[in-house]
Each structure stands twice: as C-alpha cells, then as structure tokens.
C-alpha cells in the first residue's frame, strides 16, 4: 500500500535521510523505532511532502507521490498526526475538525468521531489551546480521520501522555486496523509499538537498519535494543 524506496532528504547541506526503504501492506501497522535525531520525523515529513525529498520514490498503491505538494498527498488519502499534535490553538474542537473536512466524510463522519472520542464531544466548543495533552492527541487523530484516509502517519503520538491515555490510543489504532487503514507509527514508546505493530523497523542515522515481523522482533528484542536503541 505504502512503499518508500531510496529516499534521500536534506536540510540545507545536512544529508538527513540516506536512502530510506519502507514497505507496508494494506491494513498493516508498521512501527518505526529509533533514537532521537535519526530522522524519523524527517521520514514522515518527506512522505507527506512537507520536506521535499531530493531523490527516491514514495508509492501509494501505483502512484509515485515523491515531489508532490502536501495538499495533494493528503487528497490522495494520506493523513498526518504530527509530532507535537499541531492543533489549531485558537479554533474550537469542531472547527479544528472542519478544517480537515473538505467534503462530508463517508467512513469517519463528525458524529462517529465524536462518539469514538467522547472527551472531544464534551469539549466541542473549547479552543484547541484549552485541551489537555491527551485531548489534543485525540483531536489530532480525529482531525486526520475525518479525511477518510487509506494511510495514516503517526509521529510519536504517545509523547507526554499519561499511561491511561496511551492505552486509549492503542484501542484507537486497533480500530483503524479493523477498518483497513494502513498505519506508519513512529514511536519511542516500545510498549505502544509492540502493542499495535505488525512489523517493526529500526532507524539508525538516516537508514532503516532492521525490519522484522512483530513475532520475530519479540524474540530479538533485547539484542535489537542494545544494538540500535541503547544510548
């Protein structure tokens, strides 16, 4: 469903992504692990078109989206839940959702999302800046879903969330899988990654150095941790 090959991205002269390869089947959840600063966010932003890659391909089904402007990538069915959530602070919960609702959603209409996230329904007229971190995260997920995506990119959704809220997030991501949404999940929280991931990638210095189905990863976990993830 989503296939990235040989992605190279620069910030100025900094060669950040050095040939990233990635493949996720339809309805699969891929967890991307990696230490701080290895280029996880840059990978997601390159797929989204927010940082244009200098070379490489980003295949969604049989279209290569590399070089597309972000709005085209979004319209092709890719939704983005960014690091730091990026809620519109002065818009209400409902208006935050409306920005993303370019046409009435078929699979995830507003009413369904408010049912799925009762906390948002209770605070529908509150401004984005008045929400708690967990509520903002749920809003960021809901805002992505209202575009009826086929692929969702999550960038460290568990950051700064209480364990209870992380558990809620796990439930939400399972719901996405049930609906056949393909998920790329960047996470530092190993528990969350293991709870939802079908395949695990580990990124080191701008490349994917490890790829394994979750069952295999669980057998090799300690070795992978000390080799790629330890500080």
């Amino acid at each position, binding site marked *: 469903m989503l296939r990235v090959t040989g992605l190279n991205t620069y910030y100025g002269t900094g060669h950040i992504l050095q040939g990233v390869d990635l493949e996720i089947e339809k309805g699969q959840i891929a967890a991307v692990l990696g230490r701080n600063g290895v280029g996880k966010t840059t990978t997601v932003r390159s797929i989204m078109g927010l940082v244009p890659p200098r070379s490489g391909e980003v295949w969604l089904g049989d279209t290569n989206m590399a070089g597309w402007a972000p*709005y085209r990538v979004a319209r092709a069915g890719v939704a983005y839940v960014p690091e730091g959530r990026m809620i*519109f602070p002065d818009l209400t919960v409902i208006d935050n959702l*409306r920005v*993303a609702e370019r046409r009435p959603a078929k699979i995830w209409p507003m009413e369904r999302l408010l049912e799925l996230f009762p906390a948002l329904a209770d605070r529908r007229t509150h401004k984005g800046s008045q929400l708690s971190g967990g509520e903002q995260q749920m809003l960021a997920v809901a805002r992505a879903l209202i575009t009826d995506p086929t692929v969702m990119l999550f960038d460290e959704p568990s950051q700064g969330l209480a364990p209870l809220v992380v558990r809620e997030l796990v439930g939400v991501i399972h719901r996405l899988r049930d609906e056949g949404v393909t998920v790329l999940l960047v996470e530092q929280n190993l528990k969350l990654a293991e709870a939802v991931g079908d395949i695990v990638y580990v990124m080191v210095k701008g490349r994917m150095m490890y790829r394994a189905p979750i069952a295999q990863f669980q057998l090799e976990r300690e070795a992978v941790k000390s080799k790629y993830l330890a500080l």
Partner: protein
Amino acid sequence: MDFLGFLITQCLNALSQASVLLFLACGLTLIFGIMRIINFAHGAIFMLGAYVGHTIVVLTGQFWLALIAAPLVVAGIGALFEMFLLSRLYARRDGGAYLMITFGLAIVLSEAVRLIWGAQPKGIDLPEVLTGVVFLLDQPFPIYRLFLIGLGVSASIALWQFLERTRTGLLIRAVSQNPEMVHALGTDIRIVRTGVFALGCGLAAFGGILATPLFGAYLAMGNNVVVDAFVIVIIGGMGSFLGSVIGSIMVGFVQVFGAYYFPSMALSLLYLLMLTVLIVRPGGLLGKEE
C-alpha cells in the same frame, strides 16, 4: 454655538475618517496574519486604487462602477505580484527579503502612477445622491461622510462574518495559526495566500477611492495615510481583524478631536495613543504577545 451639534458632527467626522482607515488597516492586518509579511507597498496600493478609480470615473462617468471595478483591478495586480514574485520568497523565511520586495513594489507603483497620470492631483466627481449636506441639530454635515460611515460599518460586519462563518474564513484563520498543518490536511495554502493578499490589496484600493472625493488623488496620499494604518494595526494587535476595527475608530477619534483641541500636536497624540496601548497590552488590544 450649539455644543451638542458640534460634538455630534465631530464624532461623525471621526467615524468617517475611521472608515477610510479601516479598509487600509484591515488589508494590512489580514496579510500580516496569514503571511507574517509587513506589506510596505500598502500605501502605494491605496494610491493606485484612487487613480484607477479616477480613470474609470473619467471613462465611464460611473462612480459606482469605479467603486467595484477599481478594487478588483488592483486585487488582480496584487494576486499577480504574490503569485510570481512574493511566493518565491516564502521558503527563505527571511523578513528582510519581504521588506525589500514590498518596498520595491511601492517604488515601482509610485513611479508608474507618476508616468501614467502625471504629478497633478486628480479628483473624482461624486454622483448627485452623495453630494450636499444634511443638517444635524442645525449643523451641516456632508452626506458623503455619512455614506462612508455606512460603508465602514457594513464592510466591517461583512468581513467579520466572512471570517467567522464561512469555510474560506475558517481556512484563513487556520492558515494564520499553522499554515503547514492546513496544507497537510488537504488545502492548497498557496491559493489561500494569493487570495488573502489580493483581498488585502482590494480593500486598500477601495479605501483609496473612498478617500479621493475628500482629499483628491495625489502621489503622496498613500505615504500620508499608511503610517496611520500601521499605528492601527499595532494598536489592535498584529493580525487581529477586530483589533483593527477598534484601532481604526480610536485613531479616527484621536485625529479629529486632536486636530481641533491640540492642533499643534495632532501627530504626537497618535503616538501617545499607541504608546499607552502598548504599555497596557504589549501585543496590542486583541493581539498575542510574541
């Protein structure tokens, strides 16, 4: 002298002054809110609106047509400028580059106006319904200034409703808070930026035509009034639409009453007002501190 009548006409004068300033300031604040650009060409665009309006009136004899067509023409010029020049600079995130290019536009427009229309001031003849005076408590008051107040009030309400109630308005507010996120949610923000820049230019041009029957169209008209517009935008809070409406009214009152009671220091009063507001609220009345 009838003091109440005097007071009423002075207040109405202040409001009509505020109306003209409002169109200039709202355009400036909208453009700043979306693009974080201070448009130094705004005064020149105001002037261009006045001259284009003058020509349309001369050619067709239709004041009402000029009132609609001239802002559209100037908005079109603004859109082209944004699409072909300004937009090339966004990736640089360099305030200095914006300053140079908008300042450059100001110079080019001023010289173009001088070449096309000459250095002689031009006027605009009003249609009959807008000429003459009405008597308010025995004080004569120009009908045209009442017309300006009406326009100022209706335009403020219309723009406010546009920003608050329509989908386009929602997208404009969202872009002013986080353009990248709006883009990643499927809206082409390049169109939003071009549209808002054009809207801001159109509003300034509208103000320019409206000012012409009062003061004429002349080469320095933009420079004289754009300073007021900057003061308004700072008082109201950079990027805040309602702040600019309130700021326009405050500046209108300070100018009209200042010119009457303290004619020698009318300009200093303006800065005094700005200073007071900034001491109480450093980000402006409805702005955010950054």
